[in-house]
């Protein structure tokens, strides 16, 4: 097996607020391999975006802090880097695409400037070469008449076009990893599909790995070969797309699956939701964080955090139901 390009180990990020310590990410470990796309899925507030920002070391400090853990890019731990060395990683080795293209581009700089800025920062090229590259990049993200677009300003472009520009910026320095944080959430559905197609297209053209952060399982489906399901700052289930979609094993993942609206659903049928609310991350429960909302919760679930069971190769589940002493339950569809 190839070596992972990114290895996150026991990453713990907390926010020190007046109300107390918010334990946003509570010891998350995963690996990203070269050229693969991994989906990081979970509901709002589960720590998926914080995980992404922690990898980039862009957690606003104060109040946030990466308390422990390590993030290895190749063999180097990013968390031990100096700020100056880290700046060379950002954009160059790991780049990011953010949720809202309407606000993620600086309104007072031209599109061309915002692309060229990154190229001039990380690569030894002249302004003229940077401009040519910027036009090429806009072409790559399927923007028509890029020679014109580089002179325009963000407010003159549509949301979909702006997200394409964001993608062009993200791929400009051939990063090893692109972290896409809800790249389609604020776009309407047809544009969502276009952006996802673009990401799929870029993945095959480039050698970058993609970490796709989303709350939408359907978004992950077409693009990612592996899926990580997060809940309350922890990873609940990890597996290939086939394992997660066809044979999910964690009751939380079952709930997520049921909550995806189906196109052939009877009109009167209500959209399924998971009852209850995620736990308060100011004082997360000692046992499994999902126990309170879980139909199959046992006594141990409230007392002890479940370890990872690996029922099949590459399929990891943090649930006591996997233990040999637990009763066999059938997934309710």
């Amino acid at each position, binding site marked *: 097996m190839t070596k992972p390009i990114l290895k996150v180990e026991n990453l713990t990020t907390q926010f020190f607020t007046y109300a107390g310590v918010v334990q946003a990410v509570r010891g998350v470990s995963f690996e990203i391999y070269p050229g693969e796309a991994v989906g990081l899925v979970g509901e709002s507030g589960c720590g998926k975006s914080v995980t992404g920002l922690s990898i980039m070391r862009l957690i606003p400090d104060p109040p946030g802090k990466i308390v422990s853990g390590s993030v290895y890019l190749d063999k180097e731990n990013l968390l031990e880097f100096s700020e100056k060395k880290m700046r060379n990683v950002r954009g160059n080795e790991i780049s990011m695409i*953010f949720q809202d293209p309407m606000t993620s581009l*600086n309104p007072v700089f031209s599109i061309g400037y915002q692309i060229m800025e990154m190229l001039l920062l990380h690569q030894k090229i002249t302004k003229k070469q940077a401009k040519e590259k910027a036009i090429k990049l806009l072409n790559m993200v399927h923007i028509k008449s890029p020679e014109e677009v580089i002179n325009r300003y963000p407010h003159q472009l549509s949301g979909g076009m702006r997200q394409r520009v964001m993608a062009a910026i993200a791929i400009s320095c051939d990063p090893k990893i692109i972290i896409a944080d809800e790249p389609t959430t604020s776009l309407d559905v047809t544009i969502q599909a276009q952006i996802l197609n673009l990401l799929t297209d870029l993945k095959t053209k480039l050698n970058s790995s993609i970490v796709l952060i989303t709350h939408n399982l359907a978004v992950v489906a077409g693009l990612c070969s592996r899926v990580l399901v997060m809940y309350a700052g922890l990873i609940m289930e990890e597996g290939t797309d086939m394992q997660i979609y066809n044979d999910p094993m964690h009751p939380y993942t079952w709930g997520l699956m049921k909550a995806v609206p189906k196109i052939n659903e009877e009109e009167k049928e209500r959209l399924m939701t998971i009852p209850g609310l995620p736990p308060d991350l100011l004082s997360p429960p000692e046992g499994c964080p999902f126990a309170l909302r879980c139909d199959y919760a046992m006594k141990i679930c409230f007392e002890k955090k479940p370890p990872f069971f690996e029922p099949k190769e590459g399929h990891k589940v943090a649930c006591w139901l996997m233990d040999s002493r637990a009763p066999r339950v059938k997934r309710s569809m």
Partner: protein
Amino acid sequence: MKKYIINRIFSMILVLLVVSSLTFFLAKAIPGGPFTKEKKVPDIILQRLEEKYHFDDPLWKQYVSYMGNLMKGDLGPSFRYDALTVNDIIAKGFPVSATIGFLAVLLSIILGLPAGIISAYRQNFWQDNTVMFVSLIGISVPSFILATVVMYFFGLKLKILPIAGWGGFRYMILPAITLAAYPTAYIARLTRSSMLDVLSQDYIKTARSKGLSEFKVITLHALKNAILPVVTYMGPMIAAIFTGSFIIERLFFIPGLGKYYVTAIYDRDYTVILGTTIFYAFFLVTANFIVDILYAFLDPRITYEEKK
């Protein structure tokens, strides 16, 4: 853009016309005249004087002749300073006021802008608290108190700068500091609040994720967005400061425009009142005009094109 500029120039002329007409009639409405003195002037002399300056003409005739001269750029003679015309007074006073004004504006930008940026960047830390406290003093302490304090401290105690008077750069420092205190504090507070707003925007996160240094993120990506309110404030501020401050010019004994402006009102020196008012108004509308043009350069979302 061209059409907008032409429109603006026309409206500026209109504003100046209204200001000069209003000032003309208001000045005439004040009882007394330039020749009314504590010691009564003989009637015959008064009559001759009024004839000479056409004060015996009906008001509309005086108005028409004044406006006519104004169009030619002639602001008329001063009634108080016999040898001087209003144009002379402005030519004499304005460079003095503008020099101190320029220093004060420069000082307020050099100090106020970075103070506001640091304050926003280190919100709720000691840097922020210090800037906010000092700027509160700068805004609330009246200039005549600040003037006496700096005079006492630098002039009397340390004896490193002249207390008052005019003659060379050394004489400009204390009045410039006094004049700059309020705008510096105001700019610092304005920059801080607008920076705080900008720093929480998504594009700042994007800029950081590109690997830009904090210095570049702040001074380039954030500041270019945050500077608009400051530029807005600077237009009228520059106009007010350049045309001279009565209090500061009085206290420091500076022969600037501000001194003439206020004494002219006591003296009913109509032409000087009018001339300095029109001059100030002209400066103000021009400054505002420049600010509006600057907007379009700073923020591409602002255009003055006709909507198609």
